[in-house]
């Protein structure tokens, strides 16, 4: 059996950083990734099978067969779901994880996102809590993520809400026709706006090319490798040290302990090899995403003394608003998301939290047909076709992630009766977000409509989800950090309570998930925790 300083389970937004920081500190690391390395051609440009619209499949793993989950609907009926179904709550399983195919919005959380319980009180039925750390603690690590991976934005326009010491390394994406329309609307309303920060090379950076403004960003891979994820930044750095071994197609079945109950390594399976593999290490870091990290701890019987592992599953519910502009607002220049307002992330009367609103990534026509048509339009016939013909380039899109109010019953457990292709019990997802989340979504939907009205749209329509389970690609919260072991799973470093050498480092740690895309926070926490782990090793 091979010995390592650290085994890192999962190579996504967090795991890649952990492997990099530890390897660069001279530690010997085994990085296990259940998926494979995907080339640009592997990911492809299938409009019906991608991480954004996954009708018959998807493009970044896991494979549709052999990787089931169980979903329990709000009425308590359970069914087996496959990875491309919405209720699977998938995030990509490949080298780089979700960052291989994400939209790369690089938001810092708002300082108030770290103190939600203190600011708003705890609503009935919610497990809302403050983080054990503040924005100020995380600020240097946000900066590190922005500079080491490469983020584009304008620090001056976000600075009023999120103090920063240093601006972005790259200028923001240029405005499009829809940007000026929305900017005018916001200014009529007295709202501030900002370019959307993105982990995208708007100029060549760190030896990689600039964005060529294609139409395939979120849900797809970048043709010029200008979208910065784990797979093209921190993982190559980790491998370049010679201290990190990346094993792909490797799923961890169990975190092993020695006779004293101390974590000693992992048991895993590699595709195509029948025998289970084992590796030993001083430290195990679980970075498999909020659903799979919880599943692994539960299957290993670790960290769950107080029935906290897997609870408080969060993500983001999105309100969506659409308006028909009087002129063409689409110029075909990607990625497409250009302008946002953070005016309503907090301090909304009668609402807990709130969220950010932004325009959208370029939507392929079939995605537009499924997602964006007005509800009073027939779904077929000459009028439907005429709407697509006349208005695809005239519809303004506004949407955004609303801060989830955690519900302890929105959770991940394991289902021992259902196994994946290796025989490992699968994740079982049940419950919903808290009703206060839906109230905030309804509020933000109205703000979206208001923005479009002020931007001169003739016709406005909108949509929003109801009381459902939140998770999906922004999944978080299932192993939250905290001071009290009775109400949290790890300490502020991601160290699992009552274990010296077992860490969770990914979105699972988020006590709350902000009203923003969470990836930059996942990355910042990963830099902070892995520095700590490196010191300990």
């Amino acid at each position, binding site marked *: 059996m091979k010995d390592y300083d650290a085994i890192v389970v999962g190579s996504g937004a967090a795991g890649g950083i952990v492997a990099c920081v530890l390897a660069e500190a001279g530690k010997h690391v085994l990085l296990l990734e259940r998926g494979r390395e995907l080339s640009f051609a592997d990911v492809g*440009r*299938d*409009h*019906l099978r991608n991480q954004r619209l996954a*009708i*018959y*499949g998807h493009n970044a793993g896991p494979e549709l067969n052999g990787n089931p989950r169980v979903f329990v609907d709000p009425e308590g009926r359970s069914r087996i779901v496959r990875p491309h179904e919405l209720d699977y709550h998938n995030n990509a399983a490949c080298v780089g994880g979700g960052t291989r195919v994400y939209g790369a919005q690089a938001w810092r959380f708002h300082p108030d996102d770290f103190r939600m319980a203190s600011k708003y009180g705890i609503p009935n039925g919610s497990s809302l809590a403050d983080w054990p750390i503040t924005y100020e603690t995380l600020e240097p690590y946000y900066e590190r993520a922005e500079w080491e991976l490469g983020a584009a934005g304008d620090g001056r326009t976000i600075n009023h809400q999120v103090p920063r010491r240093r601006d972005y390394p790259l200028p923001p994406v240029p405005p499009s026709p829809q940007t000026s329309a929305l900017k005018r609307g916001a200014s009529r309303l007295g709202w501030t706006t900002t370019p959307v920060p993105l982990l995208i090379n708007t100029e060549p950076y760190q030896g990689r090319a600039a964005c060529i403004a294609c*139409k395939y960003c979120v849900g797809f891979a970048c043709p010029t490798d200008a979208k910065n994820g784990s797979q093209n930044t921190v993982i190559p750095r980790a491998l370049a040290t010679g201290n990190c071994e990346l094993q792909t197609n490797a799923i961890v079945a169990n975190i092993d302990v020695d006779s004293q109950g101390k974590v000693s390594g992992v048991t895993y399976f590699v595709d195509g090899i029948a025998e289970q593999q084992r590796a030993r290490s001083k430290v195990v870091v679980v970075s498999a995403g909020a659903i799979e990290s919880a599943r692994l701890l539960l299957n290993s019987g670790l960290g769950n003394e107080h029935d906290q592992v897997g609870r408080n599953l969060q993500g983001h519910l999105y309100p969506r608003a659409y308006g028909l502009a009087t002129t*063409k607002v*689409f110029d*075909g220049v990607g990625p497409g998301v250009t302008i946002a307002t953070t005016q309503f992330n907090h301090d909304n009367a009668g609402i807990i939290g709130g969220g950010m609103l932004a325009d959208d990534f370029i939507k*392929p*026509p*079939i995605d*537009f*047909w*499924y997602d964006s048509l007005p509800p009073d339009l027939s*779904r*077929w*016939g*000459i009028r*439907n*076709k*005429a709407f*697509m*013909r006349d208005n*695809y*380039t005239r519809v303004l899109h506004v949407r955004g992630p609303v801060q989830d109010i955690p519900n302890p019953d929105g959770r991940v457990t394991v289902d021992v009766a259902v196994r994946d292709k290796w025989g490992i019990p699968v994740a079982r997802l049940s419950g919903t977000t808290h009703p206060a989340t839906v109230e905030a979504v309804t509020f933000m939907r109205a703000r979206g409509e208001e923005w479009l009205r002020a931007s001169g749209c003739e016709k406005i329509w909108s949509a929003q989800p109801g009381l459902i389970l939140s998770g999906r690609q922004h999944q978080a919260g299932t192993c939250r950090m905290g001071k009290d072991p009775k109400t949290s799973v790890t300490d502020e470093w991601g160290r699992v309570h009552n274990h010296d050498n077992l860490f969770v480092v990914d979105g699972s740690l988020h006590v709350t998930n902000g009203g923003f895309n969470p990836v930059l926070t996942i990355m910042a926490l990963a830099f902070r925790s892995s520095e700590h782990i490196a010191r300990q090793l």
Partner: protein
Amino acid sequence: MLKTETLRAVVDCLIPTDEFPGAYEAGVCDYLLRLFASDLRDEAEFFTTGLDSIELEARARFGAPFASLTPEQQSITLEAIEQGDVLTSWQISPQRFFEMLVCTTAEGFYSDPQQGGNRGAISWTMTGFEDQVDA
């Protein structure tokens, strides 16, 4: 096996020809043939039953095959099926069938040409998603 003549008339009623090609000319039937032989293999019988039922519904309403009805008669027939307001006895849910029919037809028309439909990426030119398409 999908009945080509009925299917052709049905998809052209869903996405008719105007200054841009309708569904059939854009390759939607080729898309559907491929889809119901692959991803939706298990639904092929359901889909065929639905097309047969459209045919029976057309004859019950207008005494002629669906393909030979006027565009208005075709639309009336499909609207009734969409509403579940059918005259004949259906072995399957008319609404569930119609949902599948409308969605898969739109997929064949608007998704990428590699799937078998959207010939020459014509819907991308039509919508303005692409200014010019290399066919």
